[in-house]
């Protein structure tokens, strides 16, 4: 397969064959490639020479790279754009020239202007920055070879996971390093707002798309034609993030289908033979935006992307962010995915340039593919010991919440549990990067010291801080994909009224359905997931499954307890949103991400419904609930000043109880904002309470009146 390697201009492959980062794998489990540290060479040779070296990537079928201006005119002259321009001009009564101009303005705003000089500049600066920030950047070079092969054969789509702003710079940096064709990257418009930097990103291959352009036909046409033109001609690999945005929780987000639909189109319409999709898993030992995310989840607004903010953020340079693992997964052929699933004949009946909403079977296919690809990303995510530690610490923390108990956990106990969890997760197929040659306690100790911002070792005990919980939870979330299916089963067993297999399955199915906005659970794969979970739990001796019953074994209780505890915060989060707020035990419940997912799930399940764009609960006791909230708010409002103080200072050392109280209120406000259909970002621009009284209460009252006037008819 890699015979052609000898002719490759690349010399990296031969160099680090004996890497200390090679991961030992359970032979039972999936074969994964070894990693090489690509930063090592950067530390040993000149960055400048590296940035100026001869860069001659191999391209798809030897196409010559296309100037961005040529690309633009190709797009504007395409039949598709012509068709849509005429359509728009017919519908709106505007002159075609006018619409044409708008199209070309849209393209101008969107298009990348890839320039090698800028790429070289980034190569130089990023080398410097990466070397300071990270201990190592490990890449599976076999994956790189596969990618190189794929690029020559078919148009390629790169699908990296998205955890950090870093991701796409890192991707381009790596591809440059390995002498691969530089990708063009779909980036959010937010970046374009950054002076100079935005343009530099553009010159390094980013193209900018608006976050939402719902009904704008012309925008959609220009955008999709732009992507398709690049793909069809194989000018460059197209890179985008399936998750649509950075995951603030480190949990994979449910995939967004828009761009995937677009890139599949040329294949479905028979314009290219095949398209290779390469899932790329980027795992950070410590995420640059760690605290930023936690705050964002609590409602502190995302700082607007700006050059000055970037400049200010340079203080991160002084910190140690551990290592990065980048795993280029097996290229997936869209052709083989579609085999037997999609009847491409249907596309013969409509001219290719006429845009058409995908039929249901295509939609389902794209959706399933998207989930499969996200799962492929998840599978190759490297888990650091810290991830396991975070899971354990969080669970311990909750067990210790009873008053009078000392918080924290003994270091030895933690180490011992960590080793147990390490073995468990390996059995479940986790891609765990646990240095086997060092003693477990050293591993634990070094992990903790890397994350000293989050946990502190005080006289052998760890003290957790409230605000930091969410950061920890994010790390724990990295391991969720390994445990999610067994955990759902464990919780299902816990919740089911008997051991009957059918009942456990029903309970499993309910939980799975409820959480399908929260975790990556392939639609329609309930039975497979159930079987997979059973298989894993039986394999590890936790369960005994016979055709009628599901029984937890004696030695399985520990695992079951761990697994149920893993899901517990989510379960509570969903309950809180549905019933009341008084029983707040898990700080994670405050996470806006959780609330958003809850609301989506509730909407999906029909528990709430939208009224004129607002969301209303389909529950007869809603008015009661509103009243209770008002009382709560009146109570807490008395201490308003003090709390807002806390908030603005974000004084971590302040008493946790008070903080919790404050965040409870924030959380209520946020839920209301969701209910009232106001975006969260608006809320933080003002003092929360003022905002609540000014905007939300009137709306609630209004809605209550509405409900009153509508009478019984609206409630089920």
């Amino acid at each position, binding site marked *: 397969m890699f015979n052609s390697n000898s002719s490759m201009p690349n010399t990296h492959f031969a160099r680090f064959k004996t890497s200390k980062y090679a991961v030992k794998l359970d032979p039972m489990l999936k074969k994964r490639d070894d990693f090489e540290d690509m930063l090592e060479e950067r530390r040993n040779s000149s960055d400048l020479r590296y940035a100026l070296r001869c860069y001659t990537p191999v391209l798809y079928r030897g196409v010559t790279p296309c100037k961005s201006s040529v690309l633009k005119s*190709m797009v504007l*002259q*395409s*039949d598709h754009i*012509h068709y849509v321009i005429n359509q728009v001009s*017919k519908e709106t009564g505007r002159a075609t020239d006018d619409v044409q101009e708008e199209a070309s303005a849209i393209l101008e705003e969107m298009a990348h202007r890839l320039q090698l000089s800028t790429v070289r500049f980034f190569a130089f600066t990023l080398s410097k920055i990466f070397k300071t920030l990270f201990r190592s950047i490990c890449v599976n070079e076999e994956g790189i070879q596969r990618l190189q092969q794929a690029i020559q054969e078919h148009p390629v789509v790169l699908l990296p996971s998205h955890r950090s702003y870093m991701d796409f710079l890192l991707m381009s940096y790596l591809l440059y390093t390995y002498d691969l064709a530089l990708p063009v990257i779909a980036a959010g418009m937010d970046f374009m707002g950054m002076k100079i930097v935005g343009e530099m990103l553009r010159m390094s291959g980013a193209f900018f798309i608006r976050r939402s352009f719902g009904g704008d036909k012309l925008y959609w046409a220009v955008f999709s034609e732009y992507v398709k033109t690049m793909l069809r001609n194989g000018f460059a690999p197209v890179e985008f993030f399936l998750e649509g945005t950075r995951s603030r929780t480190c949990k994979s987000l449910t995939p967004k289908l828009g761009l995937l639909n677009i890139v599949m189109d040329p294949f479905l319409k028979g314009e290219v033979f095949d398209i290779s999709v390469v899932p790329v898993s980027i795992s950070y030992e410590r995420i640059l935006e760690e605290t930023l995310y936690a705050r964002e989840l609590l409602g502190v607004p995302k700082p607007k992307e700006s050059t000055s903010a970037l400049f200010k953020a340079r203080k991160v340079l002084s910190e140690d962010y551990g290592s990065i693992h980048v795993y280029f997964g097996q290229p997936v052929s869209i052709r083989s995915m579609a085999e037997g699933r999609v009847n491409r*004949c249907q596309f*013969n*009946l*409509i*001219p290719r340039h*006429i845009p058409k909403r995908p039929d249901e079977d295509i939609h389902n296919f794209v959706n399933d593919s998207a989930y499969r690809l996200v799962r492929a990303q998840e599978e190759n995510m490297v888990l650091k010991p810290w991830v396991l530690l975070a899971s354990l610490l969080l669970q311990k923390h909750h067990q210790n919440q009873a008053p009078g108990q000392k918080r924290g956990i003994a270091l030895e106990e933690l180490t011992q549990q960590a080793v147990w969890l390490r073995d468990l997760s390996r059995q479940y197929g986790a891609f765990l990067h646990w240095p086997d040659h060092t003693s477990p306690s050293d591993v634990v100790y070094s992990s903790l010291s890397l994350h000293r911002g989050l946990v502190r070792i005080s006289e052998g005990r760890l003290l957790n801080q409230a605000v930091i919980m969410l950061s920890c939870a994010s790390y724990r979330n990295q391991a969720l994909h390994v445990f999610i299916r067994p955990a759902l089963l464990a919780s299902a067993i816990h919740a089911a009224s008997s051991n009957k297999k059918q009942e456990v399955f029903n309970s499993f199915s309910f939980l799975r359905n409820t959480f399908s906005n929260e975790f990556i659970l392939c639609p329609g794969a309930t039975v497979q997931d159930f079987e997979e979970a059973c298989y894993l739990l039986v394999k590890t001796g936790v369960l005994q499954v016979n055709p009628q019953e599901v029984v937890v074994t004696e030695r399985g209780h520990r695992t079951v307890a761990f697994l149920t505890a893993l899901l517990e915060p989510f379960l509570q989060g969903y309950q809180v949103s549905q019933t009341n707020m008084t029983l707040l035990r898990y700080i994670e419940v405050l996470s806006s991400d959780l609330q958003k997912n809850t609301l989506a799930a509730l909407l999906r399940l029909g528990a709430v419904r939208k009224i004129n764009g607002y969301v209303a609960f389909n529950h007869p006791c809603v008015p009661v609930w509103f009243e209770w909230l008002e009382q709560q708010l009146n109570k807490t409002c008395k201490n308003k000043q003090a709390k807002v103080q806390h908030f603005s200072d974000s004084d971590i050392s302040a008493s946790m109880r008070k903080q919790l109280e404050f965040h409870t209120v924030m959380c209520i406000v946020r839920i209301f904002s969701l209910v009232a259909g106001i975006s969260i970002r608006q809320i933080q621009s003002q003092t929360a309470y003022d905002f609540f009284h000014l905007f939300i209460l009137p709306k609630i009252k209004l809605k209550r009146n509405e409900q009153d006037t509508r009478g019984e008819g609206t409630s089920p």
Partner: protein
Amino acid sequence: MASNSSGGSPDRQRIAQQRLRRIAGHLQRPVDGDSTIVAAECKAQGGKPDASSEGRTVPRRRQEIMKWNGWGYSDSRFLFNKKGQAEFTGKRYRLSGMIIPGLKDWMESTFGASLQHKIPATPILNSSAVQPPTLNDAFVDELKSTGIPFSHDAEDRVFRAHGHCLHEIFALREGKFGRVPDMVVWPSCHNDVVKIVELACKHNVCLIPYGGGTSVSSALECPPEETRSIVSLDTSQMNRILWIDEKNLTAHVEAGIVGQDLERLLNESGYCTGHEPDSMEFSSLGGWVATRASGMKKNIYGNIEDLVVHVKMVTPQGVIEKSCQCPRMSTGPDIHHFIMGSEGTLGVVTEVTVKIRPMPEYQKYGSVVFPNFEQGVACLREVAKQRCAPASIRLMDNEQFKFGHALKPQVSSIFTSFLDGLKKFYITKFKGFDPNRLCVATLLFEGDREKVLQHEKQVYNIAAKFGGLAAGEDNGQRGYMLTFVIAYLRDLGMDYYVIGESFETSVPWDRMFLEELGISLVKSHTAVTQTYDVGACVYFYFAFNYKGLSDPIHVYDEIVITSDGRKKEILANGGSLSHHHGVGKLRKKWMSQTVSNVGMGMLKSVKDYVDPNNIFGNRNLL
């Protein structure tokens, strides 16, 4: 590749727009009666004056703009005004609002009709005379839930119970209604039709597809023996052009669109289908497909079977369509040929991909006078042999030529009438043509200007060999205009005891004459309307005055339709049962004779498979 299409486009667009403006100008009634004929004039004059690009001709309640008991638009009709002069009302046609001085004499001399003896039609539809609808409640309930509009109003139902055969219209004028559909549904897209057909199958309801309602084969008559609820499926609201593919020169169109809308909308994009059957103002694309229609310009554009690239039809067994839109396939018998000519017995045609052509740059009418019909036919045959037939070539016999003259509007200028007189003098006196024998061929040339002129020369040279004399564009154009108004004229005749009918057949070249076809009618016109390599399509028009006869329809039947002898004679003499009108119920008794018993068996087995419960129960064809 992409740049090619766009490079030429602004230029092409400009030309198209120019042309459109020109055509729009001609669709309006000319200001002074006898303006010069412009090349690009389109025959489809029926465009509504208020038609915007989105405007469609046919409303759900057709009776709002069309006659319920006669042909065409309510506002357009022939009548004799107070001065006793014939006049054509309305504003839609070139002839509209004009006095036609010759018509009265022609009617009196040809049929012995008299303005004193008038027999007006029942003016208003008497709803109580219509059978109350037999509704299938379960079907109606489920149909309601789909939101597809429907009606069981008597007017709506009566309107869809007939085509335009003489006996059908005659009965309506008398206020007599037979079995009529029990309700009418108006699907607005393919999926609506799928739902309706599913429901019909579920509840065992009889469906009769209805397109333009211009059938002349009793195809729309409800079988009197049908006991189930009969639902007329009116496709008129499925009238969008879904897309135009300029690369492959195809358009994908909903089947309910009527010919004039299709051409008008395509013309807006600079294209046309070129399919212009005489009924194109009202007949629908789906109807053309279902009856194997023929357009007068088939020499350039082909008949419907040549134009159709892809058809989607909803049948009780599901949707039938090909998986591609290829130019030709060798995949067994062409399934399109099960659909084309199925006359609504297998399903509803919902969407059709048709070939389109860029609009012709130049159009020119022409006419040739021959000393007699035989010479004319010989000329047509030679033209066909040399394969140089213009877009349309038609030959009218002497009777029809006179009829055409009778329809000449009053000329406003003395100069034109002087010229006409001069022409007549030249032909009859100078060239020695017998005015009672001469006949005329009308011609329509299309293409780019130079080729048209060259082509014209070639055809006139051939004509000269057969004694033909070029007789000017005006005569040619009037010939084509006639086809649009002749149907209106029948209503006028019926007001004065004159009933008329036309029928058509196709025959080989060696059997072109009435005698050869075993037809000897007292008063009949003959016209050759289409020519092929091996033969031609022949039309017979005949009419007579029935004043004094007790049951005119019976008389009429005896003469033409049920007199098996005539039709049998045509068949026995090598003519076809129909060239393009179809079989319907009127001619189905001759089907097995035409296609053989085995052929009938083949067709029947298709019907049995596709529609075992006879949901599409109009009982045409078989």
